[in-house]
């Protein structure tokens, strides 16, 4: 007597190449993902310059100030005006002081919108100077010709 096999004929595709590709894609995006971009702010479009290059070393004790097109200053996700910026800077300086450093050791990174008034940036510098900060970095985008 012939006994029929009950085996169901399942069409199984070979998933190996797809998994290989997917892992390669994951590796690609993992390598390229830049978590340091949290320094950026969507409201700020930086001006461009052909002369700047990405710094080889990160600046010590950075205080990042975003200056938006309408002159609002953003420090640590909080909005300030030139009148209230002193409060935010003092908060940052307290951290720097607690590490045994002076305000002069801090680097103020100014990320100002390209269409903001130059006077607003100067005001930011003036307020920072009053808090004894003296090293400033005007951040711009690298313009590759």
């Amino acid at each position: 007597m012939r006994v029929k096999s009950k085996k169901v004929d399942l069409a199984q595709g070979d998933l190996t190449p797809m998994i290989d590709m997917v892992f390669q894609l994951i590796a690609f995006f993992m390598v390229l993902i830049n978590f340091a971009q949290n320094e950026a702010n969507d409201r700020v479009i930086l001006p461009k310059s052909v002369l700047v290059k990405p710094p080889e070393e990160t600046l010590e004790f950075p205080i990042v100030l975003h200056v938006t097109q309408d002159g609002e200053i953003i420090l640590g996700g909080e909005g300030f005006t030139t009148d209230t910026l002193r409060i935010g800077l003092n908060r940052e300086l307290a951290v720097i002081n607690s590490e045994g450093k002076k305000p002069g050791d801090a680097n103020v990174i100014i990320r100002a919108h390209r269409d903001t008034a130059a006077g607003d940036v100067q005001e930011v510098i003036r307020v920072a100077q009053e808090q004894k900060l003296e090293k400033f970095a005007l951040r711009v985008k690298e313009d590759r010709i």
Partner: protein
Amino acid sequence: MKIRRKQEELRNEVDMTSMIDIVFLLLIFFVMSFKIVELEGDFSVRMPLASNSTGTVDDTELPLKLRLRANEQGQLVSIQMNEVQLGTDFAALQNTVIGLVGSFGPTEDAEKGPEIEIDTDFNLRYEHVIQAITAVSGYKEGDQTVPLIERIKFAKPRR
């Protein structure tokens, strides 16, 4: 009569479904959070508060003052370098700077090179200030950057 299967193979198959699910979730996360990075750099400005006031001026240093004027819309209307009107041409500004400081040659100590004070109208677009800083800071010669003025400071803001 017991009939034996001739080709009964013992196959150990690992269920890949859950792994593929997670791998695809990871892939979606990375694709969504991917952002093309634009390279950024800095123009360094060292400006202690004291230098803003009337301090002692070294007579041997050439005083360089750059005045940038703007209209009501914040557009640049004139560039003036040490009393010389340059229109709105940043190339002319760069040539003037090369003429003024080029004779000094490159200085090894950036702290001792010539210093320029930038005096702008309050409402001038910041982009023009960066263009001016670019013009006075140096220029590109192939892949090399030739530095001109590395010490930059701002005058008091004009209200």
